[in-house]
């Protein structure tokens, strides 16, 4: 077995053992089924709502929670090993730094992917079985797209967590930075964009604005899921993307770009980390 697989397998087993996998899966499953069933409660109804409403509200909730979970899962990946002394030890073994880092990211990525699949997948199963108006055929594609983009979003923030983890020397500092990263991408960026829109009184090229959304992976994630239901009225910040409809492929590709940047950055920073 190559060292990457060994490290990844250990990381994944740790995730199973300390209940990360189980907790994430349960959170996602409850979130999705809950939204599907009680999504229209505000309108005075209880029962499964339409698929588009469910996925769109699920996307706007998941966009807060997935980055947070990913950052919490992985922020101490390297700095934690450093603090307990095992990092130094591991680097005296016949494996290189990039192999160790890739193994750890792969392990955490697998935890994220597996629990997302199980969590949202079981919600999809429940909807398919019990929701009267939703057929399997219309369920499969949007839910697969949702799960795929959710996994990518999780991976991106795991990679962010590793960028943090390889650049600091204390676990507490890594936790603080992770919180700041979450705050910036999930809250501040959108507020800033709205501010820009209001401040310029819409006097900015309408063609440009949708592309600004590509600067934030959480917005791309929401766009992926919203634009699938093209007939839906876009609301809030997402409405500015109406002028330029980006294709799902473009959006997924830009998520992949967003994934590769922090991965490469983490590898470069880890290679220069002093021991």
């Amino acid at each position, binding site marked *: 077995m190559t060292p990457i697989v060994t490290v990844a397998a250990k990381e994944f087993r740790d995730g199973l053992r300390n209940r990360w996998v189980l907790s994430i899966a349960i959170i996602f499953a409850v979130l999705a089924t809950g939204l599907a069933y009680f999504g229209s409660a505000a309108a005075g109804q209880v029962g499964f709502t339409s698929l588009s409403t469910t996925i769109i509200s699920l996307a706007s909730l998941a966009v807060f929670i997935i980055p947070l979970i990913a950052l919490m899962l992985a922020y101490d990946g390297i700095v934690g090993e450093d603090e307990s002394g095992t990092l130094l030890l591991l680097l*005296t*073994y016949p494996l290189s730094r990039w192999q160790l880092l890739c193994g750890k990211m792969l392990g955490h990525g697998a935890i994220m992917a597996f629990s997302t699949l199980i969590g949202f997948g079981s919600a999809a199963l429940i909807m398919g079985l019990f929701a009267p108006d939703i057929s399997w055929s219309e369920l499969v594609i949007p839910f697969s797209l949702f799960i795929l983009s959710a996994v990518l979003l999780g991976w991106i923030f795991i990679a962010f967590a590793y960028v943090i983890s390889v650049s600091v020397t204390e676990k507490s500092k890594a936790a603080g930075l992770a919180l700041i990263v979450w705050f910036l991408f999930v809250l501040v960026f959108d507020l800033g964009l709205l501010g820009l829109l209001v401040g310029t009184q819409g006097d900015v090229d309408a063609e440009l604005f949708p592309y600004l959304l590509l600067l934030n992976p959480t917005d791309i994630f929401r766009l992926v899921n919203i634009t699938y239901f093209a007939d839906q009225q876009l609301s809030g910040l997402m409405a500015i993307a109406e002028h330029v409809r980006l294709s799902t492929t473009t959006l997924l590709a830009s998520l992949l770009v967003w994934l590769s940047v922090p991965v490469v950055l983490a590898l470069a920073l880890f290679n220069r980390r002093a021991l």
Partner: protein
Amino acid sequence: MMNIVELVGVEKRYQNVRALAPLDLVLQEGEVLGLFGHNGAGKTTTIKLILGLIKASAGSVRVFGQDPTLSESRRERQQLGFLQENVSFYDQLTGLEVLRYFARLKDIKVSECHRLLDQVGLKAAAGRRVKTYSKGMRQRLGLAQALLGNPKLLLLDEPTVGLDPLATQDFYHRIAQLKEQGCTVVLCSHVLPGVEKYIDRAVVMGKGAVLAQGSLNDLRHQAELPLTLNVKGLGLNIPESLQSRATILEDGVSMHLSLQEKMPTMQYMLAQAGVTDIDLHLPSLEDLYTHYTRTCVGSELEDVL
């Protein structure tokens, strides 16, 4: 014999702060070296240089004949065992799982883990989580980890911390066995009680420089520390030259001697009829260590003044 480790004029600087003065050190196959010094004396820096974890600022480092920082020499690490100070293994795993993980990384048969755990006396605790281990048990797990795959070069930082006297003895026996098999060992410590018998050579470091190196006998000669001769008996005569350095006790006399005075004085004392008992204390490793490091701290004070 092959030189396992070769440091020639090795220097290490961190942003103009010198962590290691030019250092020369050669270790041969089957040699056991004691590396002694305070915290910050340069021990850990030396170890890290040998492990290839850091690059030397000047000079050359050769381990198994290769530069350990190169990626080509990564394979050589299979022949290398290391245990650093204060390592805390994955608490949520069992002792056996921890060892298996490291064995896989070293590409060693997982079946060897049971044998090693047995050897370090952790057989009964192999299935328990490391979280429940005492400090001594963690240390023994660390040793088992370092011994994976019969290393040719073993670097141990504070290996006996937390071990009870019995386990310490076991550990030294194991080192002696490894030495027999041709393993080169570096023991790194402040001071290791009882280690004298097991090391071929000692290096005392301070402030990033070697203060003294050689066999314990060499060091004793260099240090010229007095040895103590205790003689019991009544009505003893003391040689005139030693009068000022002798303390009269209730049942005998205690004298501080130089190495040269040892034999004549012993003969002189033994020739007397009243002698009932005699014993001789050579300066211990601890005395030597204190002697060499004190000179180092002393010169530092002079620098300040």
